[in-house]
């Protein structure tokens, strides 16, 4: 296993980087080209911006999820956190714009607590993260339903919704620039710095690659795991604020997002058993998935067929990635 670490860290960083990124980027370019062929408006700056805006929440989720995946775990609770963020946002603000900032603070606090619980269960109770976060998924979803009485009520004030909806107009070159894209850029930069530019980030790789070796080297494995889950949870709250902003109050806004986020990471070259992955890859993977969804929609496939196609293409992408890694690495 240490060989893999050596390979990605020392052997040839440029080649390793290219190997991890290129695949998702190539697929992205091909898919986006097909999208542009079907609907030329996507090739205009406004269309491209709109595409990025749409991809932003998933890309943010993937930027958080990549920490957990690289540390050797899964975070399945993020979809439910998105739901509770949207529902909680409407319940806490009660359509009063002056409560927005306070409400967002409370929502991040909820995210922090859920992240700590996930991390604690995995790190200290030694429960596989798949089971632990599946449990939190159910509990958090249940809590969200209880909070709103099972049906979406109320409204999100406009200043809460601006993160998902606001557009800067009359911007040079692109004309319109969604605030969501700015948020995405900031979150991605922060995540990139966190994973690739800090000691903590290096420890995440070490823990995911070989926890025993990491522990022997003096890394506090528990703290690192805890940190990874907290980052993922906070990214989920961010995505929730944006999705609530874009779509308004909804009970199934977070449905299935956890799997999409994990799929985005995998498409972007993140290794499911830990120890390998990049934020750039995760974001590229999220854009690729969004391009795929857009393409299937433009083709006008009925919903069930669309879902089937999505599943098959994902499996193919992941299998191809694994095959390629075996051959090259």
């Amino acid at each position: 296993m240490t060989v893999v670490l050596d390979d990605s860290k020392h052997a040839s960083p440029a080649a390793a980087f290219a190997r991890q990124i290129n695949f998702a980027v190539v697929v992205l370019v091909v898919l986006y080209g097909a999208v542009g062929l079907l609907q030329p408006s996507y090739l205009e700056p406004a269309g491209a911006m709109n595409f990025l805006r749409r991809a932003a929440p998933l890309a943010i989720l993937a930027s958080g999820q990549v920490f957990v995946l690289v540390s050797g775990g899964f975070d399945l609770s993020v979809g439910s956190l998105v739901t509770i963020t949207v529902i909680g946002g409407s319940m806490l603000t009660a359509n009063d714009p002056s409560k927005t900032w306070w409400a967002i603070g409370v929502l991040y606090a909820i995210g922090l607590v859920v992240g700590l619980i996930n991390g604690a269960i995995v790190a200290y109770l030694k429960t596989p993260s798949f089971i632990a976060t599946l449990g939190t998924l159910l509990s958090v979803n249940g809590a969200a339903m209880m909070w709103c009485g099972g049906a979406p009520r109320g409204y999100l004030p406009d200043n809460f919704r601006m993160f998902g909806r606001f557009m800067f107009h009359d911007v040079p070159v692109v004309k319109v620039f969604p605030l969501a894209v700015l948020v995405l850029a900031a979150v991605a930069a922060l995540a990139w710095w966190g994973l690739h530019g800090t000691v903590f980030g290096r420890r995440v790789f070490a823990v995911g690659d070989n926890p025993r070796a990491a522990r022997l080297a003096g890394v506090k494995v528990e703290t690192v795991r805890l940190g990874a889950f907290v980052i993922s949870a906070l990214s989920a709250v961010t995505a929730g604020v944006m999705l609530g902003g874009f779509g308004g109050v909804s009970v199934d806004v977070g449905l299935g997002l956890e799997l999409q986020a994990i799929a985005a990471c995998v498409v972007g070259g993140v290794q499911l058993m830990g120890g390998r992955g990049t934020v750039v890859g995760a974001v590229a993977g999220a854009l690729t998935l969004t391009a795929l969804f857009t393409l299937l929609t433009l083709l006008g496939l009925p919903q069930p067929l669309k879902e089937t196609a999505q599943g098959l293409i994902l499996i193919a992408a992941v299998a191809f990635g694994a095959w390629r890694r075996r051959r090259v690495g």
Partner: protein
Amino acid sequence: MMVKASVAAMLAAAALAGLASPAFAQNFDDPKEFQAAKDMLAMTPEGPAGKPWEQHVGGKMVDTSQYKKPGPYRICFSNASLENPWRVVGFTNMQAQVEVLKNDIKSFTVADAQAKDDKQISDISAFVESGNCDLLIVSPTTTAALTPAVEAACKKLPVIVFDRGVLTQCPVTFINPVGGYGWGIQTANFVVDKLPKGGKVLALRISPGVDVLETRWSAANRIFKEHVINVVGAEFTGGDNAKTKQIVEDYINRFGNIDAVWMDAGATSVAALEAFEDAGKPYPIITGEDQEDFLKKWKEKSLTAIAPTYPTFQWRTPIIAAVEILKGEPVSGPNWKLPQPTITQADLDKYVNDKMPPLHYAMCGCEDLPGYPQRWGGK
């Protein structure tokens, strides 16, 4: 004799079950019902002017002298649920109406079935067994499942059913508005009238299989087909804002633009409009509902719109009818059809009210009720 009776009962049950499933499902697109709704929409309602909750469209009066008893009365209400804003507004109307008639009503006891058939069946039998009800009002969760419970209750006390129906004529009266066909007719005619030649229509529906929603769509679709309207899609939104917006955005992307959005319910109409805003497209012709958020948007943006209603004022009627029945006064029945007004550009201003919350239903007929507007969340 016993055997004969039970065989007869079994046959009746079988016949009923047959009625309940396939026959009922086919009836979602019944030309006769369509025509009946069309006729009702053309009729002038009878009853006190300005009080549509006391009016009736066509139909007969039923004699209730057999139920006459001295007041004040104990009224019991088995409610399907309070799971959506429409039912919350309606139930608030109902409670306020009880207050208006407090001299005639000694007690008003409510059981909330929380959208569960089995809970409502036991709620109803508990009411009947208790002996504390002079009259039972039922708003059923589902039609077929509640029929036997309502039939059992009819044997013991006068029953009023409203909103959704049951498959029996045993209640003294069944109160509801003109209905889904009427909604479909009103909305589709508006779209046909306003749509530019060759315009693209997107139909948004909540979910399949619900009679009041299925009939709205079948009636509208019948009219769209008659006029050879280009309906580019009919999608289920689950009544969810995010999903609605996503679907509309997908259609705008796919077809360049959409000229009209037809909706079988207005809860997510603002989300549908937002998709046009965010895509930088002009607003479509749209059919919504009488929720304040939609009406405000309509006025603010000068939309080409119409708001059909499934009026919440129908929740007042059962209370009024209950007192009339127990006083032995004749009531409209066995099908009491209430008017089903539509909000158009001409009377939009009358219904837009900034003081009411976004999910308030403007056609509540509640302005004259005690506690208005605070009781409905208004300012």
